């Protein structure tokens, strides 16, 4: 009896989780988290279009998606607006394709429009503020704090800025 019950459980499809990678530190932290969560979920990954390094660091396989990133430093306000809208449209399309149960991010800016749409569609939003933030909040963090169902900070002093955040150690 027990064995048939177990086999039934293992046949249950794993929960779909969409993981947002960024560049450098954001990817390192996110992939560390995926490693800790383990292969019990069905992962998809979203990363910036120009990001050359994130993909080959992925240890638990999943589908890959890319979105354009508005680089505000080099482009005019109008160009930034155009790229932001394009990014949002691409992310909405990815979201509707993947239909995840949860979205996981660690401070990359491309998580913002995705999480916003996700929230509207009933997806659970989980955000880990980057470990580079000890006392000061990032703009991404401030927005994600309003959108996320679960919001982690990786340094205790940052709870002054985000009182409802969870501190549960650091990924690095």
């Amino acid at each position, binding site marked *: 009896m027990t064995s048939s019950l177990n086999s039934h459980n293992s046949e249950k499809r794993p929960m779909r989780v969409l993981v947002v990678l960024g560049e450098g530190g954001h990817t390192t932290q996110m992939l560390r988290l995926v490693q800790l969560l383990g292969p019990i979920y069905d992962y998809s990954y979203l990363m910036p279009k120009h990001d050359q390094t994130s993909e080959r660091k992925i240890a638990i396989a999943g589908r890959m998606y890319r979105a354009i990133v508005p680089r505000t430093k080099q482009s005019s306000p109008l160009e930034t607006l155009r790229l932001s809208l394009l990014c949002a449209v691409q992310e909405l399309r990815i979201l509707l394709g993947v239909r995840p149960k949860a979205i996981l991010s660690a401070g990359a800016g491309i998580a913002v429009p995705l999480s916003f749409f996700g929230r509207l569609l009933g997806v659970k939003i989980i955000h880990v503020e980057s470990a580079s933030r000890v*006392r000061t909040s990032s703009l991404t963090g401030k927005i994600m704090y309003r959108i996320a169902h679960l919001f982690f900070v990786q340094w205790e002093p940052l709870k002054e800025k985000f009182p409802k955040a969870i501190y549960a150690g650091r990924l690095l």
Partner: protein
Amino acid sequence: MIFVTVGTTDFDQLVELVDRLAPSLLDRVVVQIGNGQYVPRNCEHFRFAPSLDPYYDEADIVVAHGGLGITMELLAKGKKSISVENTTYADHHQTDILRALAREGYLIWCQDLGELPSLLEHAPTMKVRPYVAPPCRIAEVIQGFLSRLG
């Protein structure tokens, strides 16, 4: 050996300064210059390598750009490091973490490139504390949260 690394960034100010200092330093200097424009004339250098581990292992001290990834990697390796803040970023996002880690004595923080010559001179006798990451329960909290969704 002094190993200088900028990762995937470009940090010409750092590379140029190290190149200028190299002839007056007693140690051999190796610089990983990443996407920078400036090419050193007075020291060994390369752009990228499949792994920087052999260089870390050989180095007595690592001078690194202040990015989060490399900073924590060096702490995890227990390597004595000078973390050079790249103050050209508009948001100065490296300040917060480097200040916190330097206060705890885990690394040597170079907030201004002007301080680098004296830090390099004193680094051999400077003490750093081994970094121990606090236990991380983030994954468990998330697993608990997701399992309640059914």
